[in-house]
Structures are given as structure tokens and as C-alpha cells.
């Protein structure tokens, strides 16, 4: 009992320090240091976020375990393995923090994602849960529901895919830097195609997926501005609507439409698997390679047979874990969701809340970095 009281006092002291430190510091937003080099040696465990925002706070905030926080983890939709991994990560943190409250994993089906997410948020608001963690698939359409949740005193954190206008959301837990994604995709393309470059096309998810569009925009930007990638030519962007059937057909149509295309870049786990299968079925793997963001467990055979020699992803388990920590800290009042606050997220180390440089407004916690997979490490990771 006494220990808890002591810890509470400590937290309060730290909090007040952080607050006083940050109130004036909010105006000169911390300048973004140049992001990490894109092709890192593949790492299983992500290293610490590279932001070096100077804060005067005395050490990172630590979570006080054992507080009751009812939480809802809301994925874009059910039935994509990455979201299950995120849930596993959140469960791990849930246990670690000995939260006596409930952690629920609720999601809509893909065809009903927008209305479903809104309904789940509204129901959670009615039930007076304490916190909601959203992988937003509804763009700004989700804002009114989220605002009502905030008015009811519920902590709202987004992960994986943010609210574009940042309205209603307290912090976005970014898996990677969204601008960085464009560079990583360009780097992989160059690596696969060789120094001579070549023509490629993008196979995206649905045309209105916010994170996909941000990544594609970043990719285009990199191709345009960085002379290193000037030999890469983007032919077309098509959409597979995050369905295997559509993505499969679109990939084949691309091959026929552009006989000189040599690479399909699919920044979606569903698209990359479908495109790889299509190239394999049609015996096109020697001519057209596939790359993008993929799950090692789904991609292992295509990587080994050369259809998809290289692809990237981050750990969704870690993303769920980190998101849980951020949300728990916010819901218990240990952090306030302000620029410069530093906190400790269990086994993953220390992170800092910063201004999200990829959106006009909004805050983020950057997880990062990418893990790049190829024939050398994919088997180990797929286990």
C-alpha cells in the first residue's frame, strides 16, 4: 500500500515536471532529425525511435500496474492475421500491467468496415469503457463518433492508420514513419531491379485507405525528388480492395497492360500475397517480381522461389504492445498526450510523443523501424 502511494507521488511529481517543461516548449516544435537509413540490417526486435526531441523532463514516465482500465482494441476489420498479432501484443501488455479491467478485441467485417467501426465506438461509448484503440479505416468519417467518445471522457488512441484530420484522437501510434515507407519501397525496388532501374506499378488496397495513400504519396515524392531513384518509373496505380480475388486479377491485368513492367509494388499484405501467387501461377516470376509490405509467414515460399525476393514489414505484435502502453498511460493520467512527453513501454524501451510530421496536425509516437525480409532471414521469421 505504502509502495503504491509512493509510486503515485512519484508519478505526480514527474507529471508536473513534464507539464511545466512542455507547456512553453509546445510552440517550437522539435525539428525532425533526418530519418534513419532505409535499408537497415534486418532486425527482429525494433530499436528505439530515433527522435531526439530535447525534453527537460526527468526521465521517462513509467506505468503504474494494477489500475482498472477497460479497453477496446478496434482493428480495421476482422480476418487479417496482422490484427490478430496486434491483439496478441496488447494482451501481453495487458497481463504485464495486471490490469483488472477488460481488454476486448472487437471489429467489423471488411465489407461493413466504416459503419461497423462507428457502431462499435458508439456502443463502447455507451458502455463507458475507459479507452479505445482504433486502427481507423473510415478516414474522417469516424470523427463525430470519436468526438462523442472523447466528450464522455474516453481515451482515444489510433494505431496503424490514423484519423487524417487528427480530430478526436489523442495520439497516433505510428508503426513506421509514413514518409520513410516511401523511401523503403523505393530502396527495395532499386535493389530488386538493379542499378539500371526499370518500370513498376503499384497494387494498393482500397482507393480510400488513408495509410496506403500516404505511403504511395511518399513513394511518388521520393521518386520525383531523389536522383538516386530517377531510373524507377511508376507506370500505374491499381486497387485490389484488400481482397485476394481482386488483387489477383489486377496483378495479371497489369502484366498484360504493361509488357515492359518488371516489378509490382504492393504496400498491403493481402495485395503482395495475391500478386505473388498470380505471378507464380502464370510462370511470370522470372519476368515480373513482386515486393512491398508482406507477412513473412505468408510470403516465405514466394521469397524462396524468387517471385518476391524482398519485402518489408514491422512487427504488429510490438505495435499492439506499444499501443496498449500508450493508451494505459493516457487513461491512467500518467501522461497527458503532449509534445515531448517521454515514457517507458515495458520491454520495448523509451518513447517520446512528438508532432506528427506526416500530417498537418496531430501527435504521434513512432515505433519503427522496418524489418526487411529476403531469402536469408524469411524462414526464421516465418516460424
Amino acid at each position: 500500500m505504502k509502495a503504491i502511494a509512493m509510486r503515485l507521488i512519484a508519478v505526480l511529481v514527474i507529471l508536473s515536471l513534464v507539464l511545466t517543461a512542455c507547456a512553453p516548449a509546445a510552440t517550437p516544435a522539435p525539428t525532425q532529425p533526418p530519418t534513419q537509413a532505409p535499408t537497415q540490417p534486418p532486425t527482429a526486435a525494433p530499436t528505439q525511435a530515433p527522435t531526439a526531441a530535447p525534453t527537460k523532463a526527468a526521465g521517462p514516465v513509467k506505468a503504474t500496474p494494477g489500475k482498472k482500465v477497460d479497453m477496446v482494441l478496434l482493428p480495421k476489420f476482422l480476418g487479417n492475421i496482422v490484427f490478430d498479432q496486434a491483439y496478441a501484443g496488447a494482451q501481453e501488455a495487458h497481463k504485464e500491467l495486471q490490469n483488472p479491467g477488460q481488454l476486448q478485441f472487437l471489429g467489423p467485417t471488411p465489407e461493413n468496415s466504416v459503419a461497423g467501426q462507428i457502431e462499435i465506438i458508439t456502443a463502447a461509448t455507451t458502455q463507458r469503457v475507459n479507452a479505445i484503440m482504433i486502427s481507423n479505416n473510415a478516414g474522417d468519417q469516424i470523427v463525430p463518433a470519436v468526438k462523442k467518445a472523447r466528450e464522455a471522457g474516453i481515451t482515444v488512441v489510433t494505431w496503424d492508420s490514423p484519423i487524417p484530420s487528427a480530430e478526436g484522437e489523442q495520439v497516433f501510434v505510428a508503426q513506421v514513419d509514413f514518409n520513410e515507407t516511401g523511401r523503403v519501397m523505393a530502396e527495395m525496388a532499386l535493389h530488386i531491379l538493379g542499378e539500371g532501374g526499370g518500370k513498376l506499378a503499384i497494387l494498393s488496397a482500397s482507393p480510400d485507405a488513408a495509410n496506403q495513400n500516404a505511403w504511395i504519396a511518399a513513394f511518388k515524392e521520393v521518386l520525383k525528388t531523389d536522383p538516386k531513384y530517377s531510373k524507377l518509373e511508376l507506370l500505374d496505380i491499381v486497387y485490389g480492395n484488400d481482397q485476394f480475388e481482386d488483387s489477383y486479377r489486377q496483378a495479371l491485368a497489369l502484366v498484360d497492360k504493361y509488357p515492359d513492367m518488371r516489378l509490382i509494388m504492393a504496400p498491403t499484405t493481402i495485395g503482395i500475397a495475391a500478386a505473388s501467387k498470380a505471378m507464380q501461377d502464370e510462370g511470370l516470376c522470372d519476368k515480373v517480381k513482386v515486393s512491398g509490405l508482406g507477412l513473412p509467414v505468408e510470403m516465405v515460399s514466394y521469397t524462396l522461389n524468387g517471385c518476391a525476393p524482398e519485402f518489408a514489414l514491422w512487427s504488429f505484435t510490438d505495435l499492439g504492445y506499444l499501443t496498449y502502453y500508450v493508451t494505459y498511460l493516457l487513461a491512467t493520467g500518467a501522461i497527458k498526450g503532449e509534445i515531448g512527453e517521454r515514457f517507458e513501454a515495458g520491454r520495448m524501451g523509451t518513447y517520446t510523443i512528438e508532432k506528427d510530421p506526416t500530417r498537418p496536425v496531430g501527435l504521434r509516437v513512432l515505433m519503427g523501424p522496418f524489418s526487411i525480409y529476403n531469402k536469408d532471414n524469411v524462414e526464421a521469421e516465418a516460424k
Partner: protein
Amino acid sequence: MKFITRILRPEQVRELVTLFLIVIIVLGFGAFLKDYYTGRTFVRISTSIAIIAVVAMAQTLVAITRNIDLSLGSIVGFCAFFLGVQLSYHHEIGPVPAALIAIAVGTAMGLINGLIIAYGRVPAIITTLGTMAIYRTAIVFYSAPEGGIVSAHRLPLWARQFASWSIFKMGDLDFRVMVGIAILVVIIFQLILTYLPYGRRLYAIGSNPEAARIAGFPAQRIVFIAYLIGGALAGLGGYLFLLQYGNLMVLAGVGLEFDAVAAAVVGGVNIFGGTGTAIGAFLGATLIGTLDYSLRRWPAISEFWRNAILGLLILLAVATDSAIMARLRLMWARAAAAMTMELAESKTSSSPQA
């Protein structure tokens, strides 16, 4: 004219019209798309319509009896899922037993539909609207322990490679096994519908249920069997679905029922019963598949125009169809009347006793 009415039925003229439209589309796109006349185009279109052709057979069968099956997409999805999960754990299952498993599961789901519709006398659209949701929910439950997916990498080797198996190959021109299966199904059902008494009874029930009942046809049983076969076909569709795409999500097969309706209707199947052929539905699927593929290939058309054009095409196909078919039927009816008159005259003149 007389000659034509004697050797062709209106349905066959209708099939020729669809075929003609397909040729026009191919010639039209071939004129300006590069590398269009290749074996590869054939491979793409033929493989993309294999599944829909099989499912359209199921829809045709029930549509002829004045019914509809909106649960076909969900049945395809469930069978694909069921088989996918089984294959993930039992690599020893071969291609033929796997097909039988999928067909058996599909038949069971068709059985439920058929029982409720034929013997429970619940309208088909209500029943299948309900089972569409129920079967989809069954997928969610069944797949939950697997994380809601089937992954290609967990399937046995043959299942991963099935999609590229071919019957014969000539350079780029590749006739795939799955296309062969689909065409075989179409031919079998064309024969059933044309020559078996069961097939003729389907038409009789669809064109005039009262008359069929008075004639003593066991209407309930005929409709029930139609749903049973429809379920089996959807099961086969699920088998092909799994083998073509390998990776499945809970949404697998969503919307296939509407694609099947569109294919059947464009191919001249009357959704309100009585007319339509298996070959017609297959040609309808081919027409839509050809157009869809060609629009994807057309660089001037943005990704976003495809559906708008496809919707308009379906409407125009049906509109011209109803205009032309009404006229054709009239022509044939007149010709038939003239012919029976002639016959009657010749009969009365040759055999005065009658």
C-alpha cells in the same frame, strides 16, 4: 426465314447474338490494345470466368424454376474455407477427394436452402437472403480458430500448383484444367436441361407453375433437387476458388451471387423462370469476363470507370434482349402456327378419317 425458324430455336438465336457481341468486343479492343491477340489473353479470360461460370450454372438452374439463390457466394466461401482448413492440416488429401469434400459440404448447404424453400414454402429470395447471412456467419465462426484466414503456404503442394495445371499447351495458348472443369460442367448441364425429363420439367415449372402442378409434376421435389444441385455446384465453385486464389479471407466469394445473376441474365436466362440455357449463361459470363478484362487492359480508362461502364452494359444487354426476344418469339410463334396449319391441312387432305 422459314428455314431459319426450322433449324434454330429463339434461345439459339439469342446465344448466337451473345457470341456475336463477344466477337465484336474482342475485335474492337483488339484493334487498339497492344498484344491483345495472344494466347495469354485467352488464358486470362478463361481462368477468370471458370468459377463464375460454374456458379452461374447453379443460378441458371434455380432461375429457370422462377427462383433465385442469393446464398451462392456464401456457400462458395464456406466450402472454400472448409476445404482450405482441412487441406492445411491434412496434406494427404488428393485433388479428387478434396473436390468431393467441397461438393458434399455445398450440397449440404443447398439441402438446407431446398428444404426451407420447397417444403417450408418460404419464398426463395427471403430464404437465401437469410442463409446468405447465416452461411457467411458460419465462415466467421469456422475460421475464428485459424485467425480468420486460409494461407496458401499451408496448403499441400498440389493445391498451390493446381491453378497452373494445363490440359494442353501451344506456346502462349494454355488450356487450364480449371477451365476444362468449368466447360465440362456447362456441357453436362446443357445436356441435362435439353434431354433429360428432369431438365424439361424445370422449364415447365418455371414457365407455368399452375399447369405443371395440374400435369402432376412433383413441383416441390423438382425445386428441392434444383437447390441441391445448385449447392453442389457452388461447392465445386468453392473448390476452384480455393485452388485459384490460395489465400482466403472471411469475405471470400462475397458478391459472386450477383455476378452469377448478371452473367445468367446477360446470357439470356429469364430471372422470372421458364427460359434460359446453360450455354447461354456461360456465354453471358464470357461476355462480362471479356469486357472486364479488356477494360482493365485499356490504359485510357481509369480504374474508376470500369464499374460505371459494366453497369450500363448489363442494362443495355437486357434492354435490347427484351426488345429482340419479344419480336423473335412472335416470329417463331407465327412460323410455328403457319407450320401447324400446313401440317393440319396436309393431314386432313391425306387422311380424311381424322
